[in-house]
């Protein structure tokens, strides 16, 4: 006998979740139909349950959905902002921020000696750049984008495309500036504006990652359901371009190391040398950035993902403020607050 029950779902926060829960539930042999709703955080399940109590059904279906981070219940569970997660997230985030500050104090830049650049030093500079001040801007952006993407149900493909875009972009653009012998050197105003935009994007994504404030729902950069459908089901046409473009775009992010590499690349006067220098440099930054993006993707399916997203949110917000204050100081609007 077919019966329809409505269960409350906890853990649904995005349009991709609707498709995820629906498709997972439909895979259960005795379920014939499932319809999820984000606005009410509920799911309507139709199937032949064989006279089981609703509590039993909720428990059974939860077993199916738990690996994806959702639980079903008969009673409505008050929206839990996960305040308890902050008990772990705040100290972890602070430890990271402190570690980052200590790393800057440690004087990594003095590891680079000599004034000539070969591929070895370019790689070394990339490695250092990825844990230095550039981490505040490039790493912060990667963390906020990949954690958000993972939270929205993005796949490893999105993350990989970003890195492919970054490496390819550095190769091609590095070659171009080597060939034409002049950089896309951006002026101070553009530098400041870019810094503020990046800080703003990071701030919004960071607040969304915290997942506590309702007012930010308005700011939320969620993917529309039709886009999520393609991402979840792995369409071959969508969401290839965006991550690639963002990856290429990191070439222009204000990062001191990137800029000095570009300066060197343009003095080479050859496409291959310029391209290889920038490519090797980007390769040097890859391990840390890959750790950030694939790490977030991996953690997004762990039971303690709530702690991770909140930790990432706090770190991203802190870095956004750091970048914003630095941008304003560079513009001469405020006095520098940070001195490393």
């Amino acid at each position, binding site marked *: 006998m077919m019966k329809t029950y409505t269960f409350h779902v906890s853990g649904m926060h995005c349009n991709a979740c609707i498709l995820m829960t629906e498709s997972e539930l439909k895979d259960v042999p005795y379920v014939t139909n499932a319809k999820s709703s984000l606005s009410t955080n509920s799911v309507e399940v139709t199937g032949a349950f064989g006279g089981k109590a609703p509590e039993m059904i909720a428990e059974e279906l939860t077993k199916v959905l738990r690996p994806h981070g959702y639980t079903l219940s008969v009673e409505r569970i008050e929206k839990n902002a996960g305040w308890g997660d902050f*008990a772990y997230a705040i100290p972890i985030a602070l430890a990271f921020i402190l570690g980052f500050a200590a790393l800057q104090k440690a004087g990594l830049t003095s590891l680079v000696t000599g004034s000539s*650049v070969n591929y070895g030093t370019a790689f070394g500079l990339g490695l250092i750049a990825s844990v230095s*001040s550039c981490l505040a801007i490039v790493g912060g952006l990667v963390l906020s984008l990949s954690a958000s993407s993972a939270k929205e149900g993005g796949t490893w493909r999105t993350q990989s495309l970003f890195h492919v875009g970054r490496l390819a972009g550095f190769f091609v653009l590095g070659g171009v500036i080597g060939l034409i012998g002049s950089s896309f050197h951006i002026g101070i105003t553009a530098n400041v504006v870019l810094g503020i935009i990046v800080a703003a994007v990071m701030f919004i994504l960071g607040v969304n990652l915290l997942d506590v404030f309702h007012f930010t729902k308005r700011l939320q950069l969620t993917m529309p359901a039709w886009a999520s459908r393609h991402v979840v089901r792995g369409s071959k046409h969508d969401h290839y371009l965006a991550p690639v473009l963002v990856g290429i775009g990191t070439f222009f992010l204000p990062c001191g190391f990137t800029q000095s590499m570009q300066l060197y690349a343009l003095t080479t006067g050859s496409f291959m040398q310029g391209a290889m220098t920038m490519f090797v440099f980007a390769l040097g930054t890859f391990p840390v950035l890959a750790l950030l993006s694939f790490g977030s993707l991996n953690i997004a399916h762990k039971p303690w993902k709530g702690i991770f997203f909140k930790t990432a949110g706090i770190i991203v917000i802190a870095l956004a403020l750091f970048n914003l204050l630095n941008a304003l100081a*560079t513009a001469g609007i405020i006095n520098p607050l940070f001195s490393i």
Partner: protein
Amino acid sequence: MTKPILISILVSVVLIGGAFWLATQSSGGAASGTATIVDGIQYVDISAKGGYSPRVVTAKAGVPTVLRMKTSGTFDCSASLVIPKLSYQKFLQPSGTEEISIPGEKAQGTMQGLCSMGMYNFQIQFL
């Protein structure tokens, strides 16, 4: 209050304390210096690598000044020098000395110099 929250607050306080301790530590290199005057021209020497050294230089106000930025294997942000008051922005060569002249009438008050991302800075105090 539950135990994790108490532990969390404790750890947070320790970490914030640590951050303040770090912030008050001056990083390597001389913290302050003075300008030298040769033949009526004032020279301010600052080396740029992983930050600027010395961080604070005192100089005489109203004297034509030459700021000499010294780099040696500098690939980090400190090579990307910005001096807002002079509307000066330049990417310093990885190794060498860059001379920036500051006319006497601009040599007033506190002049701030920083790297284009803003986390390294120095100041010249014209007294």
